[in-house]
C-alpha cells in the first residue's frame, strides 16, 4: 500500500524556467512518451516524424481552443538533457498559460515532475558525471525542502481541516470495504451498498470542491488574470497606469499606441490581480467587437477570469454597449462594464444614459475619479465569479493532478458499487484513489485501515 512515487518510466513535465512573468517560458517534457504526448495537443508539424534538435512552430490546443502559440524543440533520446525523449515548449511567459499547458499535458498522461527529477533522470541515464552525484543528491534534497515549505505554507486557514476530513472519510470508507473482505466470518454488521454509495459521494464532493477551487487557487497564487478590453482609445492603458499608479504603458492620443500586451500585478486586500492591457487590434479593424480581428484579442480574453470592458461614455450608445457586452458574455469570465472619461461631463447625466445596463462602474482614468469603486468591483468579481466558491483552495498543480486521478478512481468505485462488483474489485479502485490523494492527505496505510476496523468493530472470535 505504499507504491513508489518515483517511477523512471513515466513521462514527466514541469516549467524549466523560473516562476514569475518573463517574456517567454519553457516547459520541459521528458520520457518515453514525451513526443507522442505533446503531439496530441500540438497543432502544426507532426512532431513524431520530426528530426532531433529541430524547432517547430505550432499551437497548443485544448478541444480546438488555442491556449498559446509555441515553439516545440524536439530532442530524441539519448541526445537530450535527461537522455530520454524531450520536448521543450517555448510558450508565452504568463504563469497562467504555463499552468494551462501543464494541466493539459497532465490530462493526456504526463505527470508533474518531482523536485529534481529531470536532473535525476539525466544522472541515471549517464548524462551527468559520477563526480556530480553528490551535487545532484543535494539538489534533490534542497528542492524537495523548498517544495515542502511551499506545501506547508499552503496549509493555511481551513485547508488542513478540510484535508483531515477527507483523510478520515477515505479511511472510513476503505476500512468498511476491507472489513467485508478480511472479516466476513466475524459477527459484525456490514454496511449496505446504499450507505457505501453515499460515503463515496461524500468523498467525491470533497474532491470536486477542491478541484473546483484550483482555478481560483491558481488565480490567487499566480494572480487573477484580468483583461482590460475595449475599443481603441477607450483609455485602457491610462486605466492600467492609474491602477498600478505607475507610468508603465506608453500613453498617447494616437489610437493603438499599445503594441504588446502589458501585464501588471495589482494587490487588493491580498488578492493578486494580473491586469492585462490588450492591444494589437489596430491592424484589423476599428471596431473591436464586430471586426475580424476579434480572434486574437479573444484569445487573451479567454484566459481571463475577469474582463474590465472599458468604453468611452461620450461616444458609446447604450444599445452599442449592450451589443458588445452580449458578445463578450459568451466567455466564461466575469464582466465588469466600465464607463470611462466621465471627466468630460459636467453633470452625472451619463448614469441615466446607461441606466438599463446593470453593474456599470463609471470612472475617469485620467483624473483617477471613482477608482476605489472599481477596485471594490474587482474584488467582488473574484468572490461573485465562478472562481470564488470554496473557502479551501488548491494552488498546486501536483495536488490538482492527484485530485483529478482520484476523482477518476472514485468514479470507478461508484460504478463498481452500482454494478454490485465484489468488494476486492471496489477496493482496487479505492486503493488507487487513496494512492493518488496520498500527496494531499498524507499516506494512508493498511495499519490505518486495520486500526479503524479494530476500533469500531469487535473482531476476533
Amino acid at each position: 500500500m505504499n507504491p513508489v512515487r518515483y517511477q523512471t518510466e513515466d513521462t514527466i513535465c514541469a516549467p524549466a524556467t523560473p516562476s514569475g512573468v518573463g517574456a517567454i517560458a519553457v516547459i520541459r517534457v521528458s520520457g518515453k512518451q514525451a513526443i507522442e504526448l505533446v503531439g496530441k495537443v500540438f497543432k502544426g508539424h507532426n512532431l513524431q516524424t520530426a528530426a532531433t534538435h529541430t524547432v517547430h512552430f505550432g499551437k497548443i490546443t485544448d478541444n480546438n481552443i488555442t491556449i498559446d502559440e509555441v515553439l516545440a524543440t524536439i530532442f530524441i533520446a539519448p541526445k537530450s538533457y535527461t537522455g530520454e525523449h524531450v520536448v521543450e515548449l517555448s510558450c508565452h511567459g504568463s504563469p497562467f498559460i504555463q499552468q494551462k499547458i501543464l494541466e493539459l499535458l497532465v490530462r493526456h498522461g504526463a505527470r508533474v515532475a518531482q523536485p529534481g527529477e529531470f536532473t535525476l533522470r539525466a544522472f541515471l541515464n549517464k548524462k551527468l558525471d559520477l563526480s556530480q552525484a553528490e551535487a545532484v543528491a543535494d539538489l534533490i534534497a534542497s528542492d524537495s525542502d523548498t517544495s515542502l515549505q511551499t506545501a506547508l505554507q499552503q496549509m493555511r486557514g481551513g485547508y488542513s481541516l478540510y484535508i483531515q476530513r477527507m483523510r478520515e472519510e477515505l479511511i472510513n470508507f476503505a476500512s468498511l470495504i476491507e472489513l467485508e473482505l478480511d472479516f466476513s466470518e466475524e459477527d459484525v454488521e456490514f454496511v449496505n451498498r446504499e450507505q457505501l454509495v453515499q460515503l463515496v459521494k461524500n468523498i467525491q464532493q470533497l474532491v470536486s470542491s477542491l478541484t473546483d477551487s484550483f482555478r481560483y487557487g491558481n488565480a490567487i497564487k499566480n494572480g487573477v488574470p484580468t483583461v482590460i478590453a475595449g475599443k481603441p482609445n477607450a483609455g485602457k492603458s491610462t486605466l492600467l497606469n492609474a491602477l498600478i499608479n505607475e507610468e508603465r504603458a506608453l500613453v498617447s492620443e494616437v489610437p493603438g499606441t499599445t503594441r504588446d500586451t502589458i501585464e501588471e500585478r495589482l494587490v487588493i486586500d491580498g488578492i493578486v490581480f494580473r491586469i492585462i492591457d490588450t492591444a494589437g487590434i489596430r491592424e484589423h479593424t476599428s471596431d473591436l467587437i464586430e471586426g475580424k480581428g476579434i480572434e486574437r484579442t479573444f484569445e487573451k480574453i479567454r484566459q481571463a477570469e475577469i474582463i474590465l470592458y472599458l468604453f468611452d461614455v461620450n461616444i458609446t450608445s447604450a444599445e452599442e454597449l449592450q451589443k458588445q457586452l452580449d458578445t463578450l458574455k459568451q466567455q466564461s469570465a466575469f464582466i465588469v462594464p466600465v464607463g470611462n472619461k466621465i471627466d468630460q461631463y459636467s453633470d452625472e447625466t451619463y448614469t441615466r444614459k446607461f441606466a438599463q445596463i446593470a453593474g456599470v462602474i463609471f470612472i475617469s482614468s485620467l483624473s483617477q475619479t471613482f477608482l476605489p469603486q472599481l477596485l471594490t468591483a474587482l474584488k467582488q468579481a473574484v468572490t461573485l465569479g465562478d472562481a470564488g466558491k470554496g473557502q479551501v483552495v488548491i494552488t498546486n498543480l501536483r495536488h490538482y493532478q492527484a485530485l483529478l486521478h482520484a476523482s477518476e478512481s472514485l468514479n470507478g468505485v461508484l460504478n463498481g458499487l452500482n454494478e454490485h462488483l465484489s468488494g476486492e474489485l471496489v477496493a482496487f479502485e479505492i486503493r488507487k484513489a487513496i494512492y493518488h490523494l496520498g500527496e494531499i492527505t498524507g499516506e494512508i496505510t493498511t495499519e490505518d485501515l486495520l486500526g479503524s476496523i479494530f476500533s469500531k468493530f469487535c473482531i476476533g472470535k
Partner: protein
Amino acid sequence: MCKFYDIIIVGAGHAGCEAAHAAATLGSRVLLITMDMGKIAQMSCNPAMGGIAKGQIIREIDAIGGLSGIVSDQSMVQFRMLNRSKGAAMWSPRSQNDRSLFSALWRGYLEGCSNIDFWQDSVKQIIIEKGIIAGVITGLGITFKSKAIVLTNGTFLNGIIHIGQKQFGGGRMGDPASSGITEQLVSLGFQSGRMKTGTPPRIDGRSIDYTKMEEQKGDEIPSGFSFKKTQLPKNQLSCWITYTNEKVHAVLRTGFDESPMYSGRIRGLGPRYCPSIEDKINRFAERDRHQIFVEPEGWSTCETYLNGFSTSLPDHIQMKALSLIPGFENAKMFRPGYAIEYDYFPPTQLKNTLETHMFENLYFAGQINGTTGYEEAACQGLMAGINAHLKLREQKPFILKRSEAYIGVLIDDLINKGTEEPYRMFTSRAEYRILLRQDNADIRLTKLAYKIGLADNSRLVKVESKEANIKSIIRYLHKTGITPNAANPVLSDVDSSSINQQVKLSSLLLRPRINLDYLIQKVDFIAKELAIYNREELLSAEILVKYDGYITREKDLADKINRLENVRISTDVDFHKLTSLSAEAREKLTKIKPATIGQASRISGVSPSDISILLVQFGR
C-alpha cells in the same frame, strides 16, 4: 549420535517442522531439537488451519513443497471455502483439524526424512566462535555443532502463563518455559520485547447441549489445501455456534479486579483482532452478546475448543460465566483459558531471508519474530529452512516478492516495518490481492520451488499440465459463440439481461451472476466440450477471463514497482555518509539495511526524495 550438523533447528512447532523438512529435503543434515517429542507441530491454540489470507498462505507453502497443506488435508475433520460469495481472489480455504492426528502426521513425515535427527531437550545457549555461529549447548549440557541455526522458539522464551492472579513460567500449558537464549542474544546486542496472546478453555464435549446451538457444517465437496492429490474425509464434523449474554458479561466483570490484563501484570501487547472475552465486553460494552464457535478437537476425542472465549480471568469466574451460555449449562472444563507472555525479537533485525543482520547463518522464524498463527509461523520456517540451506551451499537466496506471494508480503512487512502487536496476515496487507489467489498459488510458485529443488517433479508436471489446460479452456471460451436461443433461457434464470445476437462465451462470463459452473450445468455443448478438465482448471480459467482487466492492471502496477526491486543497494554502504538523505532516512536505512531500493521505499520515514538520492547512488 552425530555431533555435527549443517543446520540446527530449535523448536518443533509449525515453523521448526517446515524449516527442518525443507532444509533436509534440499540435502542439509538437520538436527531438530524440541523439548517434547510428543508435541511436534502441536496446535497450541485452535484446532484449525487456514482462513482468510491464512488459507492462501497454506496453499503457497504447499506449492513450494512444504508439508502444512498435506498434513492439514490428511488430518481435517471439516473443510470450508470461506468468502465464496466474494470474488475469486478472496476465496480462502479453512479446515478444522484433528489435533493429535495433525501432530502425529507431522512427526511421521519428519521421521521419514533420513537427513533429520531429533533431540529432546531445551537449548540454553548458542555457540558463537569468533563471531561465527557454531552450534548450541542444551539444557542437559550437551554441545551440538552446526554451521547454521534456525530459532523457532514460539512462545517459550521466558514464557509466563496467567490465569487470574495465578502466574507461573511456561511455554504452553503443561510445558516449561525456556530461558537463556533471550539473555544471551540481548547481551550480544539484539533488541527484544514482550508480546501477549491468549487461548480459551477446553470443554468436555459430552457435557455440551448442542441442541441449543446453531450447526455449522463443512462444504459439501471439500477441496482441501494441497495441490497434490490427498485423501479428504467423506464425512465431516460440524462446528456449533452459540452466544454470550448480559448475564455472562456481568459475571465476567466480577473477575476484572483479578484480571492480569487490567491489573497491569501483563505488559506485553496482545493482538487487537483476537481479543479476550473480557476485552470484548470492556471495549464494546454496547454489545449485548458475542459469538462463540464450538469447535471439535478431533475424530476420537470429546474435547472441544471455544473459539471466541479466550480469557485469562480466574478459572472459577470462567466456569461460572460459561455455565450461563446456552448449551453450557452443565459444561465440564478440561482446562481453563489463559494468557501467555513471551519474548520476541523485533523482526527489523532480519534480512529478507530471515537471517539476522548481526550474525550470518543465524535465522529467526515464527512467533519469535512477533507474528501469530500457525500459517504465518509455518511459512517463515519454510523460508528460513530453504535460505539457511541455500546460503551454506553458496546459492542465491530464495526471496518472494510482494507481487508473488502472501509469504513475500509477510516477510517484507516484518523486516521493513516491524510490528507492535502480534502480526497476522490479512488480505488487505497485500497490494496485489487479485494476483495472490488461492487457486493459482502453484502457478505462481511451484516452478520457482522446483528450480531450487524443493518442489518435486510430479508437482512440476502437474502445474504445467494445469497451465496448458487453462489456456485451452480460455481459448475455447474466447472463440466459441452462443446463440440467443441457447443463452437466453439460461440468462433469464439468473435475471441477467438477454442477448439478441450471438456472443462469445467469454463475454457472458463477464456478467456478475454468470459463472462457468452454471453454464456447464445448463448448456450441453459446453458441458461436453469441457468435460475433460477438472474443477481446479475450470475455476482458474474462469477467474482469468472474468477478472482479466483487473489482473492485467495489477500486473502492470507490479511490474512498474518491481523495477526498483531490481536496483540493489550494496551491503557495505554507510548511509550516514550520504548527507543529502534526511536524518530520519539515514537512521532507518542504517537499522533496516534494505537490500534494494524497492525495499527502502517501503520503510516509513524514507521519503520519495530520499529514494531519488538512493537512486543517484545506486541507480546506474
